[in-house]
């Protein structure tokens, strides 16, 4: 079946511009996660959705970052007034949202470059 997809795969933008990153989770997965991964670094948790609500926004690095999810499906991560330190790969994952044995399935990521 179809996995998690993300778009665009690559995004180059100028400092100060806003960007929107999209994630299409696996159909039926209630949980959705956004992570950031800087070059050569580990995964940095950003935000987690259960259904359309976000019980954990603790990882968002600043108020320039926001995310929403509609219809328990597509999610959009928006970064306003981008800065060069925002350059990274943004990974989305989804899961069934089951207790205990949940497994996250990751998309290929969006590589964001802020010039």
């Amino acid at each position, binding site marked *: 079946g179809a996995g998690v997809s993300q778009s665009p795969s690559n995004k180059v933008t100028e400092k100060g511009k806003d960007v929107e990153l999209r994630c299409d989770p696996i159909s039926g997965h209630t949980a959705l996660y956004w*992570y950031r991964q800087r070059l050569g670094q580990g995964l940095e948790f950003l935000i987690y959705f259960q259904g359309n609500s976000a*019980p*954990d926004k603790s990882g968002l690095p600043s108020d320039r970052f926001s995310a929403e999810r509609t219809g328990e499906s597509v999610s959009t991560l928006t970064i306003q007034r981008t800065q060069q330190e925002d350059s990274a790969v943004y*990974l989305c994952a989804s899961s069934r949202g089951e*207790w205990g044995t949940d497994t996250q399935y990751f998309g290929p*990521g969006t590589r964001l470059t802020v010039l």
Partner: protein
Amino acid sequence: LAKTTQPISMDSYEGQEVNITCSHNNIATNDYITWYQQFPSQGPRFIIQGYKTKVTNEVASLFIPADRKSSTLSLPRVSLSDTAVYYCLVGFNNAGNMLTFGGGTRLMVKP
């Protein structure tokens, strides 16, 4: 939140068994332990998951001692294609609980 600690990097040779240990001293009662593999320019991929004792699948084995404060991922007879970053993840998917990835272990398999 259960924080994990892994070696930053490991080297091995083709055909050897590789064991990567992850420490998670403050693991909670309901937490499961999951390992992921990540190749360059790809998202992480699930390898194996366990709660206690030993779990084995077609790819790897996972050893968890009785106190559950650590776990060891065992890769039998590695090949060059096993060169990747391996992440230990401890957590419980529940509203309000965050799943935390450690820094990962960069495994380099040499010919």
